[in-house]
């Protein structure tokens, strides 16, 4: 029983957490990929930027002596999401829109986004340094230890993990209703399916572009904040988080928000279960196994964790480039 609880703690919980973070990031990426038709390389740093905005707001409130029943960082995440969305629109106005209007090839936009990611990296590290920071400015995070009958080991869940899961569920439902019921959401799907046809039916593409950046930017901020609340805020995350999110986007099918959610959880679970030490779960069956149980039996050593999303990406690109949910191959 103890081993099962260990598996729940280390395998399932962390898979769910990292999966929802990847999913939140991948939704934005897939919408940008589908509507604006380029791979947005600056998404990882947009996440870091959002987390920093949250941290600054939280620190400001904590300095004023505000205390709330929820962690400050979670509460100020909502204004921070709005700020990040505005920043994302600003980045689009300054760097991507002129290129789009000049009729640049999509690959030039990809390159511009690489330039933007470097600029964001530079600015963030210039003002904040490279050390990692704790998002819980006012009080340490609460950890719940839930006793399980028949086991001495307890189920461990932290407060931000619960908040993250709730937030992901709410965000996904809200996004679903927005995309299927709201006028603008339907317009977004139309532009994603066929931009020319959408334009001649009178859809204002400008508004669609704005909506894309608002959703992408705010979800990126949420994902970044949640990730840094779960562990710590690391300013040097960018390229390491980018690869799993791209993998999730492509696995799910480009332009498919639901696919991105599924892809995010798939990549997250694959990653956690690949580095999970299986010998602990197998230990109760030690006598029945035909081989000696080694002390560490993970499929992938932790230092090669990045291999997992990459391999998923490669396999999908070879055998099913449209992704699970039949997205586009642009």
């Amino acid at each position, binding site marked *: 029983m103890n081993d099962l609880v260990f598996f729940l703690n280390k395998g399932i919980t962390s898979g769910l957490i990292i999966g929802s973070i990847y999913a939140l990031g991948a939704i934005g990426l897939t919408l940008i990929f589908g509507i604006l038709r*380029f791979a947005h390389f600056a998404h990882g740093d947009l996440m870091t930027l959002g987390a920093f905005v949250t941290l600054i707001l939280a620190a400001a409130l904590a300095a004023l002596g505000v205390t709330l029943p929820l962690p400050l960082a979670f509460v100020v995440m909502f204004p921070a999401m709005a700020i990040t969305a505005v920043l994302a629109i600003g980045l689009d106005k300054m760097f991507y829109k002129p290129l789009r209007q000049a009729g640049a*090839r*999509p690959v030039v936009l990809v390159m511009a986004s690489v330039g933007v990611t470097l600029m964001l*990296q530079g600015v963030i590290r210039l003002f904040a340094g490279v050390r990692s920071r704790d998002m819980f400015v006012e009080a340490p995070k609460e950890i719940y230890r839930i006793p399980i009958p028949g086991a001495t080991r307890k189920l461990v869940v932290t407060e931000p993990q619960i908040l993250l899961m709730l937030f992901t569920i709410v965000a996904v439902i809200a996004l679903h209703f927005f995309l299927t019921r709201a006028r603008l959401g339907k317009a977004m799907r139309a532009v994603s399916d066929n931009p020319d046809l959408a334009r001649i039916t009178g859809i204002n593409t400008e508004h669609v572009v704005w909506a894309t950046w608002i959703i992408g930017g705010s979800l990126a901020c949420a994902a970044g904040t949640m990730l840094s609340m779960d562990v710590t805020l690391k300013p040097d995350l960018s390229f390491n988080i980018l*690869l799993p999110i791209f993998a999730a986007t492509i696995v799910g099918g480009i332009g498919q928000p639901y696919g991105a959610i599924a892809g995010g959880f798939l990549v997250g679970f694959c990653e956690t279960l690949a580095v999970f030490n299986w010998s602990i779960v197998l230990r109760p069956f030690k006598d029945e196994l035909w081989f000696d149980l080694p002390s560490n039996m993970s499929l992938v050593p932790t230092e090669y964790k990045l291999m997992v999303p990459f391999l998923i990406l490669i396999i999908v690109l070879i055998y099913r480039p449209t992704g699970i949910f039949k997205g586009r191959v*642009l």
Partner: protein
Amino acid sequence: MSSQTQNPIMRDIALFAALGVLVLVIFVSQGAVYSVRMLVEAGCYGIIALGLTIQWGYAGLFNVGIMGFIAAGAASSMLMTFPRNPDFWNSGGPELAGLFIVKLIACALALWLANNSNRWGVGPRLRALLITIAIAVSYLVLSFHMTVMSEEIEKASGWMGGLGLPVFFGWIIAGVIAGIIAWFVGKICLGLRSDYLAIATLGIAQIIKHFLKNADWLTNGTLTVSPMPWPVPSPADGEFLFARAAYLSVVAVALLITYLLLQRAYHSPWGRMMRAIRDNEEAAGAMGKNVNRRRLEIFILGCVLMGIGGAMLIHFTSIYDPSGFLDLNHTFLIWVMVILGGSGNNRGAIFGAIFVYIVWVMSEPLAVMLFATIATYGDQWLGWEAPSDFLSRALQMRVFVIGLTITLVLRLAPQGLLPERQARH
């Protein structure tokens, strides 16, 4: 714009003359030893930039994993040329390593057979199953063998050591290894849109770096390897300046040969075909050109050049340190060189490489000086106390400047300083 189209040759001469003056100023102000070092490194970057300019400028391929190909080239060249490690050869290591290669070939064969099983009448579902089994089994076999082998080798001899072969041979192998990796990446991604290639190259670069950092048995990991052998008498044998100048001449000759060959390729029917594919893929395909195959060719060729250039660069620094491969220095700096110099123009790539590298090297002390000044005056005038890692943040300023340069050049001068000149035949 009008003057450059009217008189491109004058523009070339003027820019290269200005570059010559800049180099001369540095020679006078910084001394010969320093300047020769800078020129050698700039020359190596020039070769890498030529590799990128044919990928981006000739074929429009977006490669953000240059660092990976440089690292792979440097590591393989190091393994070829570093003196042998007698401890390793006297232990059971070579046997294990040989067995690993045999298993690797067997697994590759099994995977190939599974992948081509549809030719022998195997249905799609069975084929998918066969492929899955082949991948799973070969992964388990190889990773288990690698764990055993790395423990065994690290216990017996620390690491494998090199093969002690001549340096020029090592450079060729560097190109070959980089080319093989490029073949894999290109085979998978080149049929799809260019964004996928960017994502995949970004990923492979991170993985190569992680692997080299952690593979202590193969490359000594983060413990670094030095001194790397030189193809010419190294500074340890005698004169410092003479040794560096000899290395410079080797690099210059390599750069010149590469340039001449690429220039010839650009004006050949092959080069015209490449530009046709870049400018209008559908039309080129309709003319019967095999678009993906040509792209694969040029992608591999570019990566081979990156591997060779990277090997030359790391041999010169004489210390092989896998943590020293940085996205900024070994990927994005080269992008700035190419797009600033002028993509699709070989002279532009060389000009960009040398000019940007000089600016890059000079900017480091300048940025530190600027930040030190800010810290001093901020303290004196405003009573603002700078954070303890303030000076190390000066380097982050350069990240910002690189990003800003990329976006500005793309927007304001997409053709670069020396624009591509389409030859009229």
